[in-house]
């Protein structure tokens, strides 16, 4: 890491292929480690649980509120404009496609990235600067397993949990706005859900959520590892660079799925 002497600018991380390669290698290692049971020692499990608690549970009320308000607003916009243009019969499908399939995962990823991505990046960058991770290597403990993978797994799970909750809230809101508090609209609603969520759509949706979760968990951590030991100065640039990369990846994933689906 001594080679990273010129890490003064956060934007520089975006245009450095070596940094992206590092992220990819780290992502591969972390993903493999995250799915191997040996990673989860009681200590590591504790770290993962803590990560989930910070990333998901603590922000749950705020996130639910934001999801409900944003959802309600967008549903109303769609309903009013659909009525205006006389395409009311397509508005529920539009809401499900735009809000549940596209916007909720994206907003959740951005929300978690802002709330926790920066925190994870800062924490790991601080550990790198202090040399804690290298110290662990010297004592024979694997820092990837002990510190990083539980955090990454926790963050990814938290994103998945929040996305699920957000989709649940917005779907319920859509039903209530369209049909009110009665089960009378269930047959039609079920039919539209069946139309919108076919197998390919569901698989793409799951894959996108997984990619968002992994990106939110891995990229800030991977970039934070580029901080220089003993140089507190490099810390802000590393954290910010990680966030920049994260946003780039999130946007890229979203655009790619949209292009694949609609182009």
């Amino acid at each position: 890491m001594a080679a990273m002497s010129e890490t003064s600018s956060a934007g520089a991380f975006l245009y450095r292929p070596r940094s992206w390669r590092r992220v990819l290698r780290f992502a591969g290692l972390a993903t493999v480690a995250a799915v191997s049971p040996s990673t989860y020692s009681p200590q590591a499990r504790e770290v993962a649980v803590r990560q989930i608690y910070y990333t998901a549970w603590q922000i749950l009320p705020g996130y639910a509120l934001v999801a409900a308000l944003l959802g309600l607003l967008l549903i109303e916009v769609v309903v009013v404009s659909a009525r205006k243009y006389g395409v009311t019969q397509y508005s529920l499908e539009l809401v499900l496609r735009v809000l549940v399939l596209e916007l909720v995962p994206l907003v959740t990823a951005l929300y978690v990235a802002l709330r926790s991505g920066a925190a994870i990046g800062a924490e790991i960058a601080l550990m790198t600067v202090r040399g804690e991770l290298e110290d662990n290597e010297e004592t024979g403990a694997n820092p990837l397993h002990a510190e990083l993978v539980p955090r990454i797994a926790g963050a990814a799970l938290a994103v998945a949990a929040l996305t699920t909750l957000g989709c649940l809230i917005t779907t319920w809101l859509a039903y209530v706005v369209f049909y009110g508090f009665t089960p009378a609209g269930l047959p039609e609603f079920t039919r539209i859900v069946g139309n919108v969520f076919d197998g390919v759509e569901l698989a793409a949706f799951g894959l996108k959520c997984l990619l968002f979760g992994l990106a939110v968990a891995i990229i800030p951590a991977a970039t934070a590892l580029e901080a220089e030991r003993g140089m507190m100065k490099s810390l802000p640039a590393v954290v910010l660079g990680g966030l920049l990369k994260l946003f780039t990846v999130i946007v890229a994933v979203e655009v790619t799925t949209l292009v694949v689906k609609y182009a």
Partner: protein
Amino acid sequence: MAEHSDKPASPAAAAADLAAALLPRSLGVKVGILIAFTVMVIGAFIVYVLYARGVFEQTQRMYLIADNAEGLGVGTDLTFAGFPIGYVRRIRLRDDGKVRISVRVPVSEAKWLRESSVFVLDVPLVGAAKLRAYTANLKDAPLADGAERPVLRGDTAEEIPRLVASVRSVLENLDQITDTGSSLQESLKSARTVTERMAGKYGVLGGILGGENNARKVIASIDRANALLASLNGVALKMDTVLSKTDQRVLGSGGLVDETQKAVAQANAILGEVSASLKRVDGILADAQAVAGNAKAATTDLAALRTEVEASLRKVASLIDEINRKWPFERDTKIKLP
């Protein structure tokens, strides 16, 4: 994160200790609830989507054959009376250039489809194509599984140019009809004149006959005809009596017919005599020719014969006179003699 101490020695253990001290005790439970809830929601949603897509429902297939499947997509609903009763599962172009649309219909909804059902593919201007089923008689035999039916196509976009063309010609016709000097205008004008006349003194009669004078004449004619009919009535009565009298005179006993019969009998007898006389004349003439030389001797015979012939002719003439007198309808009094 606040749980990190500044001491680098055995940092993981220290961090864990500190975290355990700072964090709520039920942290594991809360996170467990969250994860369990997430997994449950995801599982329930997948089951719900499978249910919504009809995976747990028994379906039957039917195939619709169309010339053109434009606007139709997999997942398009087949509707009956506005309610979706099935959906398009697959669309395939057959070797003969027709489109085969595979439709899945849940068994519970198959009752709406009968042997006589008609299927229409409707492509509206805005929105996706619609596949509709119409069943006139719900008591027909139910549609068999895997049945193949043609689909009619109602394409709004294709209809519009045709519609515009015909509407234009209709409008042109209308324009011509309502133009100044057009036949409709003339007809209306004439109709107005006629109705004005009809509203005049002689009403409808004046309207039909085209003027009050004519109407007056017609009325006068009718009056005269009435008078004529009255006098004709009298004439008919008289005629009746005349006819009864005539009947008596002509057909009664001693009437005209009777007399005529008698006269005809007489005439027969006289004619017989005439015929005999003429035969004798023939014989005498032959004799006369033969004995032309002895004229003197023959002259006395001839004088007697002549008086005889004249007497017969007079009888015939008087008979014919009598017949003519008794037979009023014969006017030709000429008699041709042999």
